[in-house]
């Protein structure tokens, strides 16, 4: 209110033709002067102010009140917000008719500004508060460890809303994939769109009601298809246990969400970190886990690192290893036409997956044992890798196979 009655009021008064008035003041319901035009030549006498306040008729909220007892006629009107009188404007008039117009304009302008100001504050304290926090937490175009920092305004907001800045946190990401109905190769609108939009409104509420979430956790849509949960934890001195707890939480959320069968759900979580600054990093990890899960897992639902350990290791391999080791294996597998012999690579991968057992490999690939033997031999001669003699060679073969599969969607990798 001080800003409104101070700064904004002065700007309004600055636009007014002052030749028809002596002074303008805003007073509170008990007569205290809240603001006055800086150019005025004196305050309106306090007995006139109190008389005007007494004459205020609460049933007529847009009334003009006149007082002729002083040297100048004083015209006054109440400022009303939500049917409550919050202050009064008083003008010492030289030209009364002109001042009646001025006071009406000033009142209308102040009331509009105050109502707009209140609406902005209210809007921020409701659902959009958490959306605003999530958007700001995720809104960095690139991040570099140690360099990213939260804005002072966000930190202040987080503290003001009661968030403990020092809890451990992980991002759980829920991706909503709309189930489509395709007939005759076109998507028919069978009336699901309104249900989709209605669910999206409820989706956040369903997750917020999950029994494992508390007031320190933040839930909001990051965009139209992703719900972000910033889940907090107390430090038990064993981060591994917290990851198992996250598995339970994700299962519980999927169970809550699957009641609404409009969507297919993909859910994953990122690393647990000790600062809000790392929420973005955790979000990226969760997003990458969902990408990898979409490639390597057949079914939607919970995607987690332990369901695809090799895939995750392959995804996060240092670029030196990618270029120096993996690429050189792929180069050695090139055929005459320049393409990579993926069939040979897949046999080698299956051989490694089956712990170098020829019979099991043959069964998996539905090939004869001798065929598998010849292909493995060919692979060894081409690449120099012998998984039967070296675990590192076996690991390189697996990473090469995984890298090829990941390479197919490498545009999805978020930095």
């Amino acid at each position, binding site marked *: 209110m001080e800003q409104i009655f101070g700064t904004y009021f002065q700007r309004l008064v600055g636009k007014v033709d002052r030749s028809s008035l002596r002074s303008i003041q805003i007073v509170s319901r008990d007569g205290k002067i809240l603001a006055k035009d800086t150019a005025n030549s004196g305050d309106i006498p306090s007995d006139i102010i109190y008389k005007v306040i007494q004459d205020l008729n609460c049933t007529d909220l847009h009334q003009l009140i006149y007082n002729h007892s002083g040297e100048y006629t004083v015209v006054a009107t109440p400022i009303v917000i939500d049917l409550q009188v919050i202050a009064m404007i008083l003008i010492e008039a030289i030209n009364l008719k002109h001042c009646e117009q001025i006071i009406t304009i000033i009142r209308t302008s102040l009331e509009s500004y105050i109502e707009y100001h209140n609406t902005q504050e209210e809007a921020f304290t409701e659902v959009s508060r958490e959306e605003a926090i999530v958007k700001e937490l995720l809104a960095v175009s690139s991040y570099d460890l140690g360099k990213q920092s939260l804005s002072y305004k966000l930190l202040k907001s987080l503290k003001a809303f009661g968030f403990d800045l020092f809890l451990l946190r992980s991002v759980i990401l829920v991706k909503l994939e709309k189930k489509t109905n395709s007939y005759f190769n076109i998507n028919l609108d069978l009336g699901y769109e309104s249900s989709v939009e209605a669910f999206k409104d409820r989706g956040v509420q369903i997750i917020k009601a*999950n*029994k494992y979430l*508390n007031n320190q956790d933040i839930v909001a849509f990051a965009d139209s298809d992703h719900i972000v949960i910033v889940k907090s934890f*107390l430090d*038990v001195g064993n981060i591994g246990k917290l990851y198992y707890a996250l598995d*339970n*939480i994700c299962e519980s959320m999927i169970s809550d969400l699957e009641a609404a069968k409009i969507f297919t759900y993909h859910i994953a979580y990122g690393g647990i970190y000790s600062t809000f600054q790392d929420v973005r990093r955790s979000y990226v990890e969760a997003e990458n886990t969902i990408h990898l899960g979409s490639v390597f897992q057949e079914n939607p639902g919970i995607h987690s690192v332990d369901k695809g350990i090799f895939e995750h290791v392959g995804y996060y391999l240092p670029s030196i290893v990618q270029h120096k080791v993996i690429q050189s294996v792929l180069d050695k597998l090139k055929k005459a036409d320049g393409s990579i012999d993926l069939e040979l690579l897949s046999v080698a991968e299956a051989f490694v997956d089956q712990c170098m057992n020829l019979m099991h490999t043959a069964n998996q690939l539905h090939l004869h044992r001798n065929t598998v033997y010849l292909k493995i031999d060919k692979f060894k001669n081409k690449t120099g890798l012998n998984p039967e003699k070296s675990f590192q060679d076996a690991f390189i073969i697996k990473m090469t196979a995984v890298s090829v599969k990941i390479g197919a969607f490498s545009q999805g990798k978020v930095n």
Partner: protein
Amino acid sequence: MTSRERVLAVFNGKPYDKIPVINPTSLATVESMRHTKAFFPHAHTDSHAMAALAGAGRDLLGFDSVMPYFSIHLEAAALGCEVDWGKLDRMPQILKAPLLEPDDFVMPVNFFDRKPIKALLQAIKALRKKYGSEVAIIGKVVGPWTLAFHLHGTANLILETNMEPYKVHQILGMLMQTSIEFAHAQFEAGADIITWADHATADLISAKMYEEFLLPVHQQCNRALQKAGPVIFHTCGLVTDRLELFSQAGFEAFHLESRNDVKAAICIADGRMLMTGNINNPRILLNGTAADVYKAVNRAVEGGIQLLSPECALPCWVPNRNLLEIVHAARTQQNK
């Protein structure tokens, strides 16, 4: 009408002359300590100091109740926790929890003879002897949830609600008996009312967790204490999402923090629980003026609060003049 009659009239649904001012939690201030020569940390565990400092609430400040259990650590200390009893203006804290496993716990036979427990019971007896039927005496117990925090570790317990829920049920079932028996002992020593401190706060657990783990325990405890006397449930923080559940637990009253809207709370409780509170501690009592306290009291009364009190254990540097103002403001309210 004596202070005690006034307070009990509210609990019994009978007419009373003025809105009572009580302290379900610590009212100890440095000023009161200096006046009574009963200082923290000594007053946490010495019965004479406890009684003297509790009596300041009546003799210096004019409250309608006295409450000699200032911390929430007596049971934990008696059951084996290593406790730092704090300083003049710093409350105690648990240094080391015994990491209780359900199979390890046995309630000690001599629990009521252990120093901090015995001291409290003696303090209650001394206060009853001093004040007779003039003033209401409020005892306090730490409920099984908070006791589990102390004995097992807060982080461990919260994690186990996720990973090993059966263990949490076991622990609460075990510790519940300690709280019930301690409450009975305090009623027998002369307490009129018990504050039940169990921190099912929204910053730690959801309302559904309260419903799953604690509500059945609280219902059982309240059935056991029904004939003994009224119980005020204390838990910090925003409680709107769980107040309906609290109302089903059987407590006679709830100690409301200032972040909660009194009218909304009373509406949710719908006559099943009285409300006490909810004068803000940090902003109003610690840093506010007497005028701020007066307005806060008016707001609470207009909201429908039935028993006025500070919202939680006081910071020790709260000036006594602000506490006097609560009583003064309460006395100027329209008589019931």
